[in-house]
């Protein structure tokens, strides 16, 4: 209970349709946060029924309740804490035997629960007939068949919910316990465990986990026992070999018995269609994945366009608002803040938000259909070398377009450390903004040699990603957490559009709110630093830039280049505009960053006569590998929920980009 509201926790293996059910129950009333003290995402939502409010907690999707990952520990601690009034356990009707494992792992936990056999429509198509009533009798908890994608089928679920709450139905696991009793040492171990030693768990559950080798349970028991009991306990434990396998066998025997007379066993055949053959092909699979992602990116521009249009419209508002404010006699400072800070950053954010919207939609769709799991399979080996999952390839490819989209796309990675590492590496991928200035600059300075510059940038990118994976990988994805792929490739499902769209809108709104909180203050600071009523020399940025020029010269950056570099941390597309403003003495630096003023006509001549080749090379390196932009930084914070890691990665990128500039500059000096 929370403030008199009933709390329902959703528990189920990945692909059991848990998110679909969560979305179906709660609609737009969702909230994404963090589990206290943990980096695992916590999804909560609510719904009203018969005038009563229910809170739905979406527990992390795990395969079991063991102690192998943060997600699993959070899940079982949450259940044992009694915060949920009832636990809704999901199983996949089309793979009933396998997906009942979660229920068997729950057996022995005394929190009231009920069982939802989801994807009932798929099972029916397979020719399976499931007798939920028979199963209900065997388990002593309400059982219901459901198609979470069909809103009309929720009545049965609500009935089960009411019954479970009213009767406080606890799962009957007697026959599973008799299976466990045949494992050597189980009964003896059970006898040693004092009741209520860890609240929420029965001695049966604890004994089974101790047999399995569950480290947390074993440590707790070891502390709680003393004297001869402890000696006995330790001897049983040391005699137990491969306990997880033994309890696993018991669980499946139990499930087998349960399903007898409940479902007609139809032998299913693996479905492996043309697309599966193509995407998993030894030679062409990777190409197919890249084509799918590119297709997805192009597709994601379509839903992105309206938002991008809104962003541009806001941008177009700036000149009229500015002149209106000036003619109304508003002070220049106020006009500056409203137009150059608020409207300008809003326009900037909304335009990029379009991309986030598109990417979240397309990635969400690929995941729901089941394509994402195939991509993971194809790139498992390659990404595994960086300590990542195969899915990480998606954010990397997206980052060639927009790093913010890449960060948003990293959401599909279910392990926090791997997600942060993926985003950290995605930053090294030059984004669309970098591609809009680098080819232009390198052609200007190096003519046909520009091709070489671009190849060098791509090679540096690969090296950068490899080094960054080493630098952050040890901490984010420790060797003990790197394990090979054990993953289900789910059958293809039709996406549920309404739920998906609701989710995508909610997600985009969350990103917008969080990003705007970060971006506006930073824009304001930058604007103040570059503020001047007349010439550039009045601005604080100029004073700092010229003061530290002796240092920045070591990296090959004179004060103008360094200021353009600093400006590129706000947005890379603005870097050339800043140079234009500084060398020609026209326009404002801030306007240049956010793209408000156009470059001067004789920009080529200006740059060529003021910047030497080694400096130009250094500048390109510095800008390309600088932090992506403030919006992407804010999106990284939104996805990782960690200010510490976001700051750390940003600092690292600043240092590395200057280092790369320094190397490029000095190599350049040797050549030219």
């Amino acid at each position, binding site marked *: 209970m929370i403030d008199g509201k009933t709390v329902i926790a959703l528990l189920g293996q990945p692909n059991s349709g848990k998110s679909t059910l969560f979305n179906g129950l709660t609609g737009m009333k969702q909230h994404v946060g963090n589990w206290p003290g943990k980096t695992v995402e916590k999804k909560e939502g609510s719904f009203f029924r018969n005038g009563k409010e229910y809170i739905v907690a979406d527990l992390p999707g795990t395969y*079991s309740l063991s102690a192998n990952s943060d997600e699993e520990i959070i899940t079982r601690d949450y259940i044992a804490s009694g915060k949920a009034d009832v636990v809704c356990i999901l199983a996949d009707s089309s793979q009933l035997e*396998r997906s009942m494992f979660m229920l068997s792992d729950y057996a022995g936990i005394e929190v009231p629960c009920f069982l939802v056999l989801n994807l009932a429509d798929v099972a029916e198509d397979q020719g399976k007939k499931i007798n939920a009533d028979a199963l209900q009798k065997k388990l002593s908890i309400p059982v219901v068949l459901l198609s979470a994608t069909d809103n009309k089928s929720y009545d049965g679920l609500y009935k089960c919910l009411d019954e479970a709450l009213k009767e406080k139905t606890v799962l009957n696991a007697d026959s599973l316990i008799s299976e466990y009793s045949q494992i050597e040492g189980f009964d003896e171990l059970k006898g040693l465990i004092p009741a209520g030693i860890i609240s929420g768990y029965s001695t049966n559950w604890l004994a089974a986990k101790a047999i399995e080798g569950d480290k947390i349970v074993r440590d707790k028991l070891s502390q709680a026992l003393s004297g001869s009991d402890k000696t006995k306990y330790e001897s049983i434990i040391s005699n137990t070999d*491969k306990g997880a*396998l033994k309890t696993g*066998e018991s669980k499946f025997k139990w499930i087998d018995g349960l399903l007898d007379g409940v479902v007609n066993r139809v032998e299913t055949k*693996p479905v492996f269609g043309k697309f599966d053959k193509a995407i998993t092909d030894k030679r062409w699979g990777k190409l197919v994945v890249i084509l799918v992602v590119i297709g997805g990116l192009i597709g994601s521009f379509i839903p992105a366009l309206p938002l991008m249009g809104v962003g541009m419209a806001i941008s177009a508002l700036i000149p009229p608002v500015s002149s209106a404010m000036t003619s109304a006699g508003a002070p220049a400072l106020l006009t500056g803040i409203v137009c150059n800070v608020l409207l300008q950053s809003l326009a900037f954010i909304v335009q990029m938000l379009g991309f986030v919207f598109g990417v979240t939609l397309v990635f969400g769709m690929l995941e729901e259909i089941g394509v994402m799991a195939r991509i993971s*399979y194809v790139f498992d080996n390659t990404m595994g070398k960086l300590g990542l999952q195969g899915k990480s390839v998606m954010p990397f490819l997206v980052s060639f377009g927009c790093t913010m989209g890449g960060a948003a796309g990293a959401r599909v990675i279910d392990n926090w450390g791997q997600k942060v590492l993926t985003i950290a590496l995605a930053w090294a991928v030059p984004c669309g903004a970098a591609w809009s200035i680098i080819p232009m600059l390198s052609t200007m300075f190096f003519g046909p040699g520009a091709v070489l510059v671009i190849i060098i940038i791509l090679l540096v990118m690969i090296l950068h990603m490899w080094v960054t994976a080493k630098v952050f990988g040890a901490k984010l994805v420790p060797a003990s957490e790197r*394990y090979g792929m*054990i*993953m289900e490739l789910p059958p293809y499902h039709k996406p549920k559009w309404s739920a998906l769209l609701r989710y995508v809108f909610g997600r985009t709104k969350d990103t917008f709110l969080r990003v705007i909180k970060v971006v506006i203050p930073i824009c304001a600071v930058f604007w103040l630093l570059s503020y001047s009523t007349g010439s550039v020399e009045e601005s604080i940025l100029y004073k700092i830039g010229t003061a530290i020029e002796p240092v920045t010269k070591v990296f090959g950056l004179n004060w103008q280049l360094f200021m353009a570099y600093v400006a590129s941390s706000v947005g890379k597309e603005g870097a050339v505009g800043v140079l234009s403003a500084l060398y020609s003495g026209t326009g404002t630096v801030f306007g240049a960053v956010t793209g408000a003023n156009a470059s001067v006509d004789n920009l080529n001549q200006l740059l060529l006569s003021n910047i030497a080749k080694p400096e130009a090379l250094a500048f390109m390196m510095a800008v390309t590998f600088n932090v992506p932009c403030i919006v992407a930084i804010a999106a990284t914070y939104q996805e990782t929920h960690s200010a510490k890691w976001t700051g750390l990665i940003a600092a690292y990128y600043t240092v590395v980009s200057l280092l790369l500039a320094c190397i490029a500059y000095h190599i350049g000096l040797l050549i030219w």
Partner: protein
Amino acid sequence: MSLSNMSKGAEGIISSINGDTRFLSRITSIGLTPGCKVKIIKNDKNRPILLYSRDTMIALNKDECDNIMVNTEVAS
């Protein structure tokens, strides 16, 4: 023979699984236990193995498949 040596289309029954606690608990929770029937869908170089078991298509890292022994004679 070990799962990693089985070729496409081969079927068998898992006879034993070795590995640390973490691996054992993960592999059982996805449904692979001794006595369970498996069919190989794909076994390509440098890719995880694709197999079908308990109505489910599962991708498994190759190194870990070395630890799963399969009896291929009993399968019909």
